[in-house]
């Protein structure tokens, strides 16, 4: 065995020794075990949703106030109860919003107002909505790199009169389309699903009926 081979063997042993105490979390085991029953994707989002500190996706959004944003709104026209932990206002004024916990656009905006957050609005993303170039679109194959349902906003960092408008839609179970925009004056009431932007070229957007 050459010196080089010995060195390789030494590094191999050090690799294994360094990580041998690393074990899958109970959550990961449960989620993987659930994959055959078709609950794997949901489990993935569920697990990520409980880790608000993770920035799984940092988007090229031209809005300085958003540190990293990824929105995941669940469908459904009914009003879903809003979880108490959906919005967290930190002592430094930073606001963290777990939109997956909000479940409904109207309920989300009601929570913002209740927390006196007036410079952030969530709007529905619909096929009937006209395209507005002020939105920045991204599509992310969340199968590979699921974004957490987390928005971090620094309201104090926004210019006076500016409002951040967010919209998102899960186009299918593995693609998430998000739209972000910074607006002054009249705000849009919806966002079109047919935007252009990073990752949008490879997705087929199904016809939508009504609003979500």
């Amino acid at each position, binding site marked *: 065995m050459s010196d*080089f081979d010995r*060195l*390789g063997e*030494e*590094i*191999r042993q*050090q*690799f*294994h*020794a*360094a*990580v*041998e*105490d*690393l*074990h*899958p*979390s109970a*959550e*990961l*085991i449960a*989620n*993987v*075990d659930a*994959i*055959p*029953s078709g609950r*794997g*994707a949901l*489990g*993935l989002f569920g*697990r*990520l949703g409980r*880790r*608000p*500190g*993770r*920035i*799984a*996706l*940092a*988007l*090229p959004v031209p809005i300085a106030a958003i*540190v*990293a944003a990824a929105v995941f709104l669940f469908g459904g026209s009914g009003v879903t109860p809003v979880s108490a932990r959906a919005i967290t206002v*930190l002592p*430094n004024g*930073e606001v*963290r919003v777990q939109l997956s916990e909000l479940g409904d656009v109207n309920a989300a905006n009601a929570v913002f107002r209740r927390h006196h957050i007036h410079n952030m609005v969530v709007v529905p993303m619909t096929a009937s909505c006209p395209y507005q170039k002020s939105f920045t679109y991204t599509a992310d*194959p969340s*199968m*590979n*790199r*699921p974004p957490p349902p987390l928005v*971090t906003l620094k309201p104090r960092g926004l210019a006076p009169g500016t409002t951040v408008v967010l919209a998102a839609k899960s186009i299918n179970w593995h693609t998430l389309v998000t739209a972000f925009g910074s607006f002054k004056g009249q705000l849009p009431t919806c966002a079109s699903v047919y935007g252009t932007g*990073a990752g949008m070229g490879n997705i087929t957007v199904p016809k939508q009926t009504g609003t979500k």
Partner: protein
Amino acid sequence: MASPHYETGSRRRALHHDDEFRQFAKAYLPTLLRGAYLLLRDVDLSEDVVQATMLRVFRNWRSAREAPEAYSRRALINICRDHWRRQHRLPPELLGEDLDGVEEETPAFSHRLAEREAMTQALDRLQDVQREVLVLRFYFDFSVAQTAEMLDLPEGTVKSATHRGLIELREILGASTDESAS
């Protein structure tokens, strides 16, 4: 009556495949997670990637079941590469920005954690290509040719990255050992 027979058999096969997958996942999950950690140096991210890997493996179980370990290793590498590509596309000001007071790294209280932390820091200091090549070669036991194919690199580059990476890693780990000893 042929149809119900077929459906029953199909269902039985599906259940059999589910069990096979679960058995494989249970046995191989730790190995995948550890390899992912060496590549990504982040436990949470590694868990995400491993779960996505397992989803991909299950979706292709019919072909994957012939050699599930090899298939899942390849899937893991591909998903890691997707992640790296996406990360490179991000504007630099958004990268690596930590949120205050959330998910601080677990302190290395124990020897094992310290050992892992030392390896993490050492791997961090390597060039990306060296780190990937070393982990593929010496943790996942891929050959030079397989590593070259997976990383889309010439074999010569894999060999040189292996050589330089090993020497650098030894120097870095040796230096950190000396520092902790003194």
